[in-house]
């Protein structure tokens, strides 16, 4: 995180705000709610209090503006610049402006006002941009889920650096952003996608293109806004050019960016018994056009053509995949090998010789 140069802060913790005008994109009540919720992000973790006033100047004046709006920092029409805010101080200090050439919304179509406002209020309180891609104070907009938003740890550390911790007994903590070679990371799921490999963890995934040395960290929701975070299993079916994601008893089918109509569906429609609560890992075997679903110490085989689970399943994983005795967290197929991920370990299993060929660290694909 970083603090605005000169460390400008408000010298009292009881601050006022005023909403000077509204965007036609949203109902006024929704704007009010988004702004109130955005301030609460910061008051929940510090001694700061925010009170809305309706008359007279407030500490933080909030307005929707377009183009050149007289503060020497013109907006630029749709996209690009979304909003800006001034550091703590008198007059324009603390004020926040939203570019009303954007499409503002309370959901995820367009730019979510709550998310952008929470970021801008960070500036109004004295924070600068963070280079942590998972932080709220990261400068680029990311399509996080406003309903499940938790202030990340990086931002908590930043604002408490300026205003100290909250007086609440319970010390707030927030999600952290994984670092690529963190040896503690356990992948939730791994899929291939049109030649790339994607490694999912929490609300992120690393995207590894065969021709780029560096993997790229993305929010799951910046690609698929309707997918949940914390995905448990996923696989690619190259025949149908679909990727399927599993969490709990639900699964989603996608093609490229698009979640196919009618999803999520229940895994029980695939034929799993109700004793199966969730899927640990899944992989599509191109040679047989079957998909293996791993649950606990057993696995099922699903015939993608007939769209039914094969008879004589479930079977013991260890029986058919000798050497794979730990829980399978993720699995994918490449070049005739299955790569089983269990915790921080990765087993390279030869489909033809039916044995583990190599044992590696789970992050070896990411250049670690």
């Amino acid at each position, binding site marked *: 995180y970083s603090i605005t140069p000169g460390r400008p802060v408000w010298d009292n913790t009881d601050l006022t705000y005023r909403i000077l005008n509204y965007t036609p994109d949203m109902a006024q009540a929704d704007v009010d709610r988004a702004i109130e919720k955005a301030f609460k992000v910061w008051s929940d973790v510090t001694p700061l209090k925010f009170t809305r006033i309706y008359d007279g100047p407030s500490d933080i004046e909030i307005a929707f503006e377009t183009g050149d709006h007289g*503060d*020497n*920092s013109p*907006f630029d029409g749709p*996209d*690009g*610049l*979304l*909003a*800006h*805010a*001034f*550091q703590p101080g008198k007059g324009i200090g603390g004020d926040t*402006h939203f*570019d009303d050439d*954007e499409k503002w919304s309370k959901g995820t179509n367009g*730019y979510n006002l709550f998310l*952008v406002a929470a*970021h*801008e209020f960070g*500036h109004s309180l004295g924070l600068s*941009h963070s*280079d942590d*891609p998972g932080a709220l104070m990261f*400068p*680029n*907009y990311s399509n996080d889920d406003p309903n499940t938003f938790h202030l990340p740890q990086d931002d908590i550390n930043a604002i408490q650096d300026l205003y100290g911790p909250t007086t609440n007994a319970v010390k707030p903590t927030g999600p952290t952003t994984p670092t690529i070679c963190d040896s503690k990371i356990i992948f939730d799921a791994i899929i291939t996608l049109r030649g790339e490999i994607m490694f999912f963890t929490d609300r992120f995934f690393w995207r590894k293109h065969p021709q*780029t*040395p*560096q993997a*790229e*960290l993305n929010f799951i929701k910046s690609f698929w806004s309707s997918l949940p975070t914390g995905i448990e299993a996923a696989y690619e079916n190259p025949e149908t050019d679909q990727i399927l994601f599993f969490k709990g008893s639900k699964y989603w089918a996608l093609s490229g960016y698009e979640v196919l109509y009618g999803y999520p569906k229940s895994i029980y429609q695939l034929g799993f018994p109700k004793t199966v609560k969730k899927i640990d890992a899944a992989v599509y075997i191109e040679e047989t056009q079957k998909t293996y679903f791993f649950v606990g110490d057993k696995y099922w085989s699903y015939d993608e053509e007939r769209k039914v689970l094969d008879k004589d399943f479930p079977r013991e994983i260890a029986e058919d995949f000798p050497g794979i005795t730990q829980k399978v967290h993720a699995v994918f197929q490449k070049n005739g090998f299955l790569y089983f991920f269990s915790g921080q370990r990765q087993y390279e299993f030869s489909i033809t010789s039916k044995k583990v060929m190599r044992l590696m660290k789970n992050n070896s694909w990411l250049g670690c």
Partner: protein
Amino acid sequence: FPAVTEANIMERNMQLAETYLKRYYDLETDGKHFMRRTSSSPFSEKIRQMQEFFGLKVTGKLDSETVRVMQQPRCGVPDVAS
């Protein structure tokens, strides 16, 4: 139509980069572009700063990944000074 040529795309990306770096990394251009191409120019130096901040490969060059990040919607920086 006409199809955008490679040169057009490069010029457009340069324009985007110049606006971006002026806006967020205090690139001084005085209206001239002659410093854009040398590897040790202010332009290249600012690109390096930006690439480092966003965790991109630090090359000082306007590669496609850098352009992609420059195109992402983001928070502006108010001109506090004046």
